[in-house]
């Protein structure tokens, strides 16, 4: 129960954090496409939360909860999404792509690319004989991308320490997984890479964590990659305000709400004898934490253009002209 309660707290934090972000998006304080995470917290906490600080996590265009679960501070993630200097990428990356090497966290907004990138991180770990592993998390939609195939094959033939987690939230934008993925379960693709078929109900956070630990352990022992299909459900639209009615029934969403991981964990805790009041106080703590966070975040400054483009100026000692905005000057 103690562990579950901890998971519950972590999931609830992500739930509220996501809500806060959605509100900020509605107010146009988060500027770009923003992809809500409600209902998928079992994956972030179960899988991303299972990594050690030195392990690497490669995430997606829906990264904010993965990032927090990996250990990035709420401050650094939120202000990144708000484009502020205190963001983990100095506010230059935004809500879909930022890199936080200090937390071994990387994400990007091109679906599927991270499966190839992951092999490189893992290759370096293996060759340098580091006791670290790489987790690569991607969606059901990404599992139709060529890089899924190439990345898994490469990791498998080289026995690289990668845990590939397919976060199957049932949709890729408006595309229902069962219409666009040609096999019944995504894990059925494992056989093509000499791997076991593993599907877990990631709305059960304990089961998710068990599966994560097992996979991570396997990788650490040098047994090569693992592919896990983590089944969950995307309760919100693909983005805030997407034309949801075109692709799913509200009823389906209501059903899903009954199975979502936060609710399930709460019920289990209550059944296990934890007091409702105790859980409520967790809730309150989180609400307060996030309120303070928001207040602080709104005060943070934006990056300067000079700083932003400095990192593209290839610093070549002998280059006569290293940066060349042709006629636009600072």
């Amino acid at each position, binding site marked *: 129960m103690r562990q579950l309660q901890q998971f519950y707290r972590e999931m609830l934090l992500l739930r509220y954090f996501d809500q806060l972000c959605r509100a900020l998006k509605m107010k146009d304080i988060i500027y770009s496409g923003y992809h809500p995470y409600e209902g998928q917290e079992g994956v972030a906490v179960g899988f991303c939360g299972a990594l050690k600080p030195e392990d690497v996590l490669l995430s997606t265009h829906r990264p904010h909860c993965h990032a927090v679960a990996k250990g990035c501070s709420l401050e650094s993630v939120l202000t990144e999404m708000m484009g502020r200097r205190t963001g983990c990428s100095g506010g*230059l990356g935004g809500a*879909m792509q930022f890199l936080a090497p200090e937390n071994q966290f990387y994400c990007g907004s091109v679906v599927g690319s991270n499966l190839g990138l992951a092999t490189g991180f893992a290759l370096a770990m293996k060759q340098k004989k580091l006791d670290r592993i790489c987790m690569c998390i991607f969606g059901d939609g990404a599992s139709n991308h060529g890089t899924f195939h190439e990345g898994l094959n490469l990791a498998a033939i080289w026995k690289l320490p990668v845990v590939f987690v397919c976060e199957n939230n049932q949709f890729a934008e408006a595309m229902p997984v069962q219409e666009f993925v040609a096999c019944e379960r995504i894990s059925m693709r494992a056989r093509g890479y000499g791997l076991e078929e593993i599907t877990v109900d990631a709305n059960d956070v304990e089961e998710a964590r068990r599966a994560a630990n097992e996979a991570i352990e396997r990788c650490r022992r040098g047994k090569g990659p693992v592919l896990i299909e983590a089944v969950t459900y995307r309760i919100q639209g693909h983005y805030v305000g997407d034309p949801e009615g075109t692709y799913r029934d509200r009823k389906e969403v209501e059903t899903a709400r009954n199975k979502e991981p936060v609710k399930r964990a709460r019920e289990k805790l209550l059944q296990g004898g934890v007091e409702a009041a105790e859980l409520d106080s967790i809730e309150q703590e989180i609400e307060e934490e996030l309120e303070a966070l928001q207040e602080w975040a709104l005060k943070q400054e934006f990056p300067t253009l000079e700083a*932003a483009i400095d990192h593209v100026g290839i610093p070549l000692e002998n280059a006569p002209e290293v940066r060349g905005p042709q006629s636009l000057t600072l």
Partner: protein
Amino acid sequence: MAKITFGEAIRQAYEEEMARDRDVFLIGEDVGRWGSLYRSSTGLLEKFGPDQIKDTPISEAAIAGCGVGAAAMGMRPIVEIMYIDFITIAMDQIVNHAAKWRQLSNGKVKLPMVFKTQGGAGRRNSSQHSQCLENWFVYVPGLITVMPSSPYDVKGLLKSAVRDDNPVVFIEHKALYFEKGEVPEEEYLIPLGQAEVKRTGDDVTIIATSWMVSFALEAAERLQEEGISCEVIDPRTLWPLDRKTIIRSVKKTGLCMVVTEASAEGGWSGEASSVVHEHCFADLRRPVKRHCGMRTGIPYGPILERRCIPSVESIAGAAGALLREARGKG
């Protein structure tokens, strides 16, 4: 004339072409249920059914390849790549196959197809969703490259692109979809390969593309107040380039500035500038100026992204400076 949005103009072009010719079909991610990201195919799935409006998995390489194969079989696919940033995944199909098959078959295979995508900044989406990559396609023999700048143009050009027997790369701008402009009720076509003089003037020729056309027109308005008269040319088709219209203008004005959102280095502005120098050398009072985006990834957020690319002010400033230099020196 009715004023409609750029997105609606696209939708009308689809609708007319699909009704006219049942071999025309649209294929891409969420072009059906969702009606495309910026709603440019809303309602068409209901109207034309899944044979002509095909939602696909996230498989840019296969989608593009599918288009090439279908075109070789006599169909007229419009392959939508959601963001030009993802066209990076389909380059083999476009460059090694679509652009090559006509020649490789000794003229026997025609590929009547359109690769339709959108690029540029303006939606605060950071560097993986804001690129200008048009010059890649200008650079590939066997492709036609089109960049429309208004609702009127996008409709007329898209219809021509669909009817052309060669592969056309058709690049819209994400900042334009909700811009309105006059579009006649009657059917019309705009031939590929024809530039348009969007505003006549005597002092400076401004060649601008895509989103930058409206900026240039507004800058010209402002300069008019200072007594400077600008001619603004939109090439519309980047290749084959309507050199005649450009040359005629520069021979008249004796000054030329090329404005692109893309950075100058390696970009189409260099092509345009070279063409003008090659044909109008004796007429030019000053060298052609390239007024282009900075050589940088587009940083996140509304402020920095705008500061990396030309603005009405910067265009007016640069054109004014060019004229003053010429007067000072000439």
